[in-house]
């Protein structure tokens, strides 16, 4: 099954990735074929797995306490442009 131009455009738009040349498309094609092998396994009556640790991995619940913060200056230094403690982004 070939990957259509519409699907490519859609993926490029969603992931902001450029499939510049046909080599990229080829690689994508091969990756999809490789992943499709999953369909060969019969999963009838088997519950999807959430984690390899299964029931032994409990979701850790943290207390409602503030344990970090007050790092405004450091975080804002990451940005090229800031206005009065706001990050600046393009409109829209």
């Amino acid at each position, binding site marked *: 099954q070939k990957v259509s131009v519409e699907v490519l455009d*859609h993926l490029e738009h*969603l992931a*902001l990735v450029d499939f510049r040349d046909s080599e990229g498309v080829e690689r994508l094609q091969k990756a999809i074929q490789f992943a499709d092998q999953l369909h060969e396994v019969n999963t009838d009556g088997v519950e999807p797995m*959430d*984690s390899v*640790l299964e029931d032994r*991995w*409990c*979701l*850790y*619940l*943290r*207390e*409602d306490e503030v344990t970090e913060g007050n790092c405004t200056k450091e*975080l804002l230094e990451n940005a090229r442009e800031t*206005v009065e*403690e*706001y*990050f*600046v*982004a*393009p*409109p*829209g």
Partner: protein
Amino acid sequence: VLNRRCVEAAVMTGLALNCHINKKSLFDRKHYFYADMPAGYQITQQRVPIAVNGSLSYSLCIDNKMNQMVTKTVRIKQIQLEQDSGKSLHDDTRSQTLVDLNRAGVGLMELVMEPDMCCGEEAAAAVRELQLILQTLGSSQAVMAEGQLRVDANVSVHHPGEPYGVRTEVKNINSIRFLAKAVDYEIQRQIQEIGNGGTILNETRAFDSKLGCTVPMRDKEGKQDYRFMPEPNLPPLILYDAKSLPANMNHQQVINIDWIHERLPDLPSVIREKLVEQYGILPEHSFTLLNEDGLAEFFESVVKQTQMKPKKVIGWILNDLLSYLKQHSLTVKESPVTSFLLADLLNLLEKKEISSTAAKRVLAELWKGEGKTPLEAVKEHKLELLQDQKELEQICQAVIDGQENEVIMMVLR
């Protein structure tokens, strides 16, 4: 890392809204690009949310009179836990968006309702009741103006008997009043559009509070593909009840639904019923008492401090005190007339030391907040009812000897 308090709040809210709590719920990533979401995805519960299939009952006044109230219900489809994004401020003049990331990552509860409401008034009443419930539970302060409660309205129209029409999503609604306006405007807009032979687009629109209308939002084009995937960093959330409680688990890591259920406070609807039963007031009265923050407590405090019957006290609270508060845009907490002062005044009236007309005048005096007691105000303006029999006879005689008109005026007073 998931905050325990978020889970407790979601369970409490789910229980208060008669939901089925899912003992196992899952987390997913919802991918999209936007400046206020630096990670590029939002953690939510798309496959299995924490609570489903609940209901919210609310009251509506028919005909705008407070005499008749009907109870309506809206079904709750689900409640899910998710992350908040940052806050965007659009600066169109400088062609930029300012982003505040302080609230990014903070836990949210999203409540999805079924399309059971038919107009702005119903939506407003339902959300108001939800607000009271959330405040009573302590799940949220639910102040819309501060973004603590955000409402997006999905609106569609259809002819009776036909399937539901295409819906639009209306965002940027900042108060309950605006919610009603936005919903009613959008209903009319859609009806007109269809009447003119047009079709409704499945789009997102913003409510413009200044113009009172909805406008298309420029940045949401077409249908979004969020590419949902299970969140790898958060395993399933497991909740327990009395039966399934594990014996040897760390107490702090366990959430017991039954334990939370037992500790739910009385919901507004129950509080209203109790007020009606305990004090003999009307359902409409208890509705108004709960609708003003602190008013029910004020009323009960006055009743405790006065001999006047609650059925009479309620009139003074709802007609006199409340209208003063509204006129001066004050909250109950800011009232210059405390429950102690009002009770004092009503006691004078009950003991027949002053007339009710005089009482109203005294209340006006007390309202000035000059620190006078009711008794001081009465003495100052000589509003005491005459009790002395002889003195009354003298006055009456003098008047009768005088003119007929004056007798009539005296009797009427």
